[in-house]
């Protein structure tokens, strides 16, 4: 029993944190809203960190590195689809593949759609194709970079696309890495709430002197700690038994969405009115995380999908679950 990430992965995460801090941390997200082209700087920075060398699907060390990279990106609402970039399959000739997105086939809507000209999109029922952005980005407060993709007939010979049996595993990895990004954002949200409530004086004392505030912080921290354990568990399951890890990945995704709902709400609430202001980091974090919480599907649809997956495939644990073989 060892639920701890390897030292190399943790070191990589620390390097990523320093690199993102060099962009100003969450300031990069603010800049991107004003100037979406500034996201290219982020893509280049990720390249310098070695994201192109990652192969999470094929290598456990790489998977751990991709996970912590996504977590660090989540902490600063990095304006870039880091999980999808980390899953770019590399071709036999070493050429880099396409960024990966998991979509709802009824509407291939993804975050940062216009950042790349061609995507490798995956969905249920074996959907596995390439797609290009169409139309403008939403440009809304909750989806500033969200745009639609339109499928193309395999748009050139891109490594990784259309490989038989590959898409389900890749879809699982995308969902797992998205949960690691959510984890990072929630972990940071708790830190921000602690900092604010410790500094904010009301009724002559710090907000953290009020028991109800302390309990709210404790509950949020417990929720994030639980999500962290589940994120590690899913990563391990993908590593040791990817063919049967689909319920584990969905459980992680479902739990990440449920946890995000409660933790973001409570940590923003603890900021009072300031939590709604974009000059305060929690507001950016909450706004910019919304696409990841809604796309390709939200909490309720994911929980329903999880129930079906458990019934079909079972659920690892102390006792058997789901349909008998």
């Amino acid at each position, binding site marked *: *029993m*060892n*639920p*701890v*990430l*390897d030292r190399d992965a943790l070191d990589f995460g620390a390097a990523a944190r320093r690199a993102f801090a060099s962009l100003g941390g969450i300031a990069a997200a603010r800049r991107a809203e004003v100037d979406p082209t500034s996201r290219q700087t982020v893509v280049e920075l990720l390249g310098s960190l070695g994201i192109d060398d990652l192969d999470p699907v094929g290598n456990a060390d790489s998977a*751990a590195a991709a996970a912590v990279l996504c977590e660090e990106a989540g902490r600063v609402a990095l304006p870039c689809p880091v999980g999808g970039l980390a899953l770019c399959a590399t071709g036999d000739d070493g050429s880099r593949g396409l960024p990966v997105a998991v979509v709802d086939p009824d509407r291939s809507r993804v975050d940062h759609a216009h950042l790349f000209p061609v995507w490798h999109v995956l969905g249920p029922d074996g959907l596995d194709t390439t797609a290009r952005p169409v139309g403008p980005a939403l440009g809304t407060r909750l989806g500033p970079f969200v745009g639609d993709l339109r499928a193309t007939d395999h748009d050139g010979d891109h490594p990784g696309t259309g490989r038989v049996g590959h898409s389900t595993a890749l879809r699982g990895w995308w969902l797992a890495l998205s949960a690691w990004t959510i984890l990072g954002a929630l972990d940071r949200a*708790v830190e921000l709430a*602690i*900092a604010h409530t*410790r500094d904010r004086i009301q009724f002559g004392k710090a907000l*953290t002197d009020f*028991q109800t505030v*302390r*309990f709210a*912080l*404790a*509950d949020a*921290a*417990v929720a994030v*700690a*639980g*999500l962290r*354990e*589940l994120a*590690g*568990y899913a*990563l*391990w*399951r993908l*590593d040791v038994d990817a063919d049967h890890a689909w319920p584990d990945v969905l*459980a992680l995704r*479902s*739990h990440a969405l*449920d946890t995000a709902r409660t933790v973001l709400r409570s940590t923003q609430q603890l900021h009072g009115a300031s939590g709604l202001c974009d000059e305060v980091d929690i507001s950016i974090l909450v706004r910019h995380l919304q696409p990841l919480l809604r796309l390709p599907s939200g909490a*309720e649809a994911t*929980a*329903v999908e*999880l*129930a*079906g997956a*458990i*019934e079909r495939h079972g*659920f690892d*644990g*102390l*006792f*058997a*679950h*789901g*349909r*008998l073989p």
Partner: protein
Amino acid sequence: MDFELGEEADTLRARLRAMIDAHVPAGFLGAFTDDPADLEVTQRFCALLASEGLLTVAWPTDHGGAGGNVWDQTVVREEMWAHHEPRGPQYMGLNWVGPAIMAFGSDEQKRRYLPPIAEGGAIWCQGFSEPGAGSDLAALATRAHPDGDGWRLRGQKIWTSYAAMAQWCVLAARVGPGERHEGITMFLVPMDAAGITVVPIASMLGPHHLNEVFLDDVAVGPEAVLGEVGGGWSVIRRALAHERVGIARYARCERLLSLLSRRGQEASPTVPDHLAAAWARALTQVRVARLLAYRAVLTQEAGDPPDATASMARIAVTRCDQLVAELLFQVLGDASLEAGGGAPLAGAIEDHWRYAQAATVASGTLEVQQTIVARELLGRPR
């Protein structure tokens, strides 16, 4: 990363399940019922476990234990709780009374008290809580007055589980004029001593769980003191450290969810479609609770002192217990109000719901755990 407990743990788990299948009657819901036969089941089962070296699996070999590691303890804890604790009231003696006597007891106390605990032959109760000292245990007011070379105990304990069936009580009382932690002293008191009166408290948990214990000039000798006079708080801290991981409530939750999952078992209620998502979420919560509990076990294995990790696990585990209890009741609908052998799953779900209501109170309230977590969060550097 590796989330497997290992082959030895798997083997131990399978062995325990085989023993439970063979020796615990179907429909067993624990020792604390109106049927004395249930207590007899636990006594026989404890004797069986002891004969196979499994009752004291976690005790050091010096004291007749198997010298098992924390993961062996974890497996035992999970399997026993999942199957309605067929050790009955023994877990307290095994988990912390015995280890506390090993750590603080005299040679005579070890000789006298440890073998009966190891054989499953002695029932202990814990005299900590008082009407004015619940979460704030250091406010306890029961006093021990010097009397010759011994002591006389005066005061009242409350919420004392198994008091009516116990032969012994490990009891905290105050010696001298000190306040708070000062002067607290631990006594090993025979429950048949003159001056002890046990009054059961009717409760939703059923018989034997909640009692008042009145101590009216109970005379005990000097040999009854466990550890140093005035050193009781150290014993209590050790007791609480042993309890830090708490009951493996998640294991029973998972077993009941498994029994009710949509497996088409005859005569077994199944999860309706409209609760399928809630069922999946509950299974996920159970997994989260188990993983957080394992994280607390890891801190124990590393020899680290109890910290917020254990409290986080307890918060998650106890809330999970209540969430699952509620979901199971939703599945049963009006049959959730039925109890006993004729109820769904022989009353296991009705029993679980009642016990789950106590989960966030027993052995340290939810609010105490939240306070510990918050204290650590706010102690972190900015």
